[in-house]
């Protein structure tokens, strides 16, 4: 069997053995064994992805495995890319779990959590490898269910974990239902096997194609956490144990994007313009709203979760514009936009996994996720702080980081207009404005996260008592940081693979060349040297520091200038809330924070105030505007429903009688 097949089968087998091992081994050894096996699954996933990307397509038919339709696996270059991405994240998470789950048998190290983790990774690998609609749906539902179990790992400790799990379960299953209807409709119209679907996609009636696309769009956008369907994301990612939220945020949400690209470009073979405009619009909305909520979030993992929504928004913008250009006939630019989107999926997987693992190590050491209580970790946990800073550099899309490369590519694809039609003439500048504002606020968000969360003095005893995480967590994070560095400095190593994927999506290969060290738009003078840029920044900084050191005298440690009176306490430091206050005031009407101030006066006179309580909460407006009324309506329906069954015996018999009569009448009338 060719390499892709062997690699994928070994990955799935390893996952199965890891799941069993988790049940068998005692608590002390469980984390170590499962961690290594998950890392093994991940590395064979990477091997499968790499083999698929280098041209070894593979498909296998296992009819007996599933009763009705049998299982069909088909790995082409597109699924190879996502296998590689998921495998890489799984390797890091596997090694990280060894330290994070730790010897104790509770929480992340408990038997159910550690047995579900490999099954989750296996399901993640199964979805892109699926070759037929039933297998895809199986993998999708398996992934949803196992991740649900993992999110609920610590439901005994906190109440909000339970509410997060309920939200997550409801929205994931609702999303799955829409995908189920969409794909089964497609299968009914064009056959269950992907190759059959591709063949008959051309003859499908536009109405069916539009309906299938809309249903799949809703389901996949929900899984990807795009904004109108995002409420589960900040809850699930914040409450899940960090290694799980790293897997979910870096790998699982990407399968939403994979679904969209597979259905939109590959199976249905492109569609009318409004398809891609909706995707781009959803992308823009997710990017802006996600980063605005992240900018004012004070919970570290909630901030990272909303930032995932933002990056998914950017990716969807890339996919949307790829479709738009394709419809306009500018296949070169379409390929460029798709290349930017794909590269950003990998870059985002890199820096987001690093950030979540770093956040996990900080939360494990300090016990709290609230940025207003952290601080001072740079001296207590130097390795974690530097690694989180490296991740933040990538996430904020600043030059030497890997986020900047894919954002640069995305902007380039928007700057060049192919003899613009009216739609593109308006869409492209607005998209550039959205990306720019998102990047700007994103930088502010990550300065807040790193600055208030890790630097200066600890604000609470929990942060003061923090100690560095166990080595296996640091090693995992270093590995991911190195991967991000390679992606930042040599992004061109991914270009041949992206070229092959884009070609398989009926697009021309992207107009990018310029050898190993430069990204050059062929036919234009736009070029950019990620390698030399990063090297220049490092070298010149070193030179300047050394030259300056030669001039003056030694550095002196002195108490910070406190205007002459009492020592500066940690309460005087800027917290995450105060840091984000100007931004929140600027976007006040978009965020609509809820402030309630209640003043308790002295009994004797109303003029003397005893205590003032001030609470401010920034609600998720989209959730309040759409989801709360929906929930209330469902509740009212439920209450009304309860009235139907008051426990009166003959009320039930009456229902049966009327039903019987109705059926008979129907029989009679027809």
């Amino acid at each position, binding site marked *: 069997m060719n390499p892709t097949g062997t690699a994928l089968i070994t990955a799935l087998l390893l996952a199965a053995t890891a799941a069993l091992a988790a049940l068998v081994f005692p608590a002390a050894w469980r984390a170590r064994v499962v961690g290594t096996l998950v890392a093994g699954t991940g590395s064979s996933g990477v091997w499968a992805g790499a083999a698929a990307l280098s041209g070894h397509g593979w498909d296998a038919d296992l009819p007996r495995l599933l009763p009705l339709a049998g299982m069909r696996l088909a790995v082409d270059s597109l699924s190879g890319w996502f296998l590689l991405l998921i495998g890489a994240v799984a390797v890091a998470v596997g090694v990280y779990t060894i330290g994070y789950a730790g010897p104790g048998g509770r929480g992340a190290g408990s038997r159910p959590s550690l047995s579900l983790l490999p099954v989750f990774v296996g399901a993640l690998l199964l979805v892109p490898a699926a070759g037929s609609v039933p297998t895809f749906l199986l993998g999708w539902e398996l992934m949803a269910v196992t991740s649900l179990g993992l999110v609920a790992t610590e439901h005994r400790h906190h109440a909000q974990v339970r509410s997060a799990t309920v939200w997550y379960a409801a929205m994931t299953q609702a999303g799955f239902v829409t995908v189920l209807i969409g794909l089964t409709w497609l299968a009914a119209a064009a056959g269950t096997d992907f190759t059959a679907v591709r063949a008959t996609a051309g003859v499908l009636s536009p109405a069916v194609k539009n309906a299938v696309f809309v249903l799949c769009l809703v389901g996949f956008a929900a899984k990807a956490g795009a904004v109108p369907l995002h409420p589960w994301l900040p809850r699930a990612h914040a409450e899940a144990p960090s290694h799980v939220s790293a897997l979910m945020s870096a790998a699982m949400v990407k399968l939403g994007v994979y679904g969209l690209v597979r259905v939109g470009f590959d199976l249905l073979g492109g569609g009318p313009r409004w398809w891609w405009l909706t995707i781009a619009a959803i992308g823009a909305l997710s990017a802006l709203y996600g980063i605005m909520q992240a900018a004012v979030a004070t919970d570290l993992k909630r901030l990272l979760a909303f930032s995932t929504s933002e990056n998914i928004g950017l990716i969807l913008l890339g996919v949307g514009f790829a479709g738009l250009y394709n419809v306009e006939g500018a296949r070169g630019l379409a390929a460029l936009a798709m290349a930017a989107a794909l590269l950003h999926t990998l870059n985002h997987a890199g820096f987001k996994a690093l950030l979540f693992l770093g956040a996990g190590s900080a939360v494990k050491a300090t016990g709290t996720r609230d940025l207003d209580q952290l601080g001072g970790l740079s001296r207590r946990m130097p390795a974690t702080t530097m690694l989180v800073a490296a991740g933040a550099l990538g996430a904020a899309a600043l030059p030497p980081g890997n986020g900047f490369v894919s954002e640069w590519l995305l902007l380039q694809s928007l700057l060049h207009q192919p003899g613009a039609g009216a739609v593109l003439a308006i869409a492209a500048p607005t998209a550039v404005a959205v990306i720019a504002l998102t990047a700007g606020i994103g930088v502010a968000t990550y300065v807040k996260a790193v600055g208030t969360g890790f630097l200066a003095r600890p604000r609470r005893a929990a942060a003061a008592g923090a100690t560095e995480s166990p080595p296996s967590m640091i090693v995992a994070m270093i590995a991911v940081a190195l991967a991000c560095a390679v992606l930042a400095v040599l992004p061109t190593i991914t270009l041949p693979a992206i070229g092959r994927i884009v070609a398989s999506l009926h697009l021309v290969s992207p107009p990018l060349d310029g050898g190993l060290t430069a990204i050059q738009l062929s036919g234009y003078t736009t070029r950019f040297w990620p390698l030399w840029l990063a090297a220049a920044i490092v070298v010149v900084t070193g030179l300047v520091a050394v030259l300056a050191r030669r001039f003056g005298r030694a550095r002196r440690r002195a108490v910070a200038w406190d205007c002459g009176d009492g020592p500066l306490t940690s309460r005087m430091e800027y917290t995450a809330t105060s840091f984000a206050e100007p931004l929140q005031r600027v976007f006040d009407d978009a965020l609509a924070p809820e402030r309630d101030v209640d003043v308790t006066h002295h009994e004797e006179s109303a003029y003397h105030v005893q205590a003032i309580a001030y609470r401010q909460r920034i609600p998720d407006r989209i959730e309040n505007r759409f989801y709360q009324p929906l929930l209330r309506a469902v509740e009212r329906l439920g209450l009304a429903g309860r009235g139907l069954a*008051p*426990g*009166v*015996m*003959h009320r039930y*018999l*009456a229902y*049966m*009688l009327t039903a*019987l*009569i109705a059926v*008979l*009448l129907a*029989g*009679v009338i027809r």
Partner: protein
Amino acid sequence: MSNEVSGQLLNLCCGLFLLSAVGVLWRRQVSSLITLLVVQGLALTGIAGLLAAQRHSPEVIGVAVGVGALKVGVVPWMLRRVHNRVPDARETRPLANVSASLLAAAGLTLLAYAAARPLVALAPSASAHATPVGVAVVLIGFFLAATRQRAISQIIGVLLIDNGIAAVAFLATGGVPLIVELGASADLVLAVLVLQILTSRLLATFGPTDLDGLRELHD
């Protein structure tokens, strides 16, 4: 017996069968309901006997005898035993008053006739034309169970449904295989036993088994 006489007798029995069901709707005292039930049992046994006679098959005769014993003997006896221990004799406040019940019975009978037409068309034998009567009695029994307050009236409603089903079985197929009949009657006996236990326990704990009293249990 000539064919034509047995045909008339059969129609007589079906008429009696239907009338007794309507009578059950009409009367309020439980004792009169039980006697009407016995009449219906007799009518049903008559139908079964006549059909057995037409078919000359001993098996159907056995079934007719079994049905007769059960419907005329065992069930009414058990009902009377339950009735004697339960003081609330009259159906005080039925949900639908008598005139409304009767109108409903008429409507249900019409519906039964309309609905049973395809059933009759299947096997257009002489007796099959009377199947709508069985269906009508089933609907009426259902209606009775749905609109009566007393637990016992509901039991009688269930019994009517069972008689209706048996009648349909006999009339439509001209004789019911023994096993089917046994199964039906076994269910019947079980139902009556359970209801009897239920009512006696209700009686022991709550006194009058007015179903409205049951509502407080739920809220």
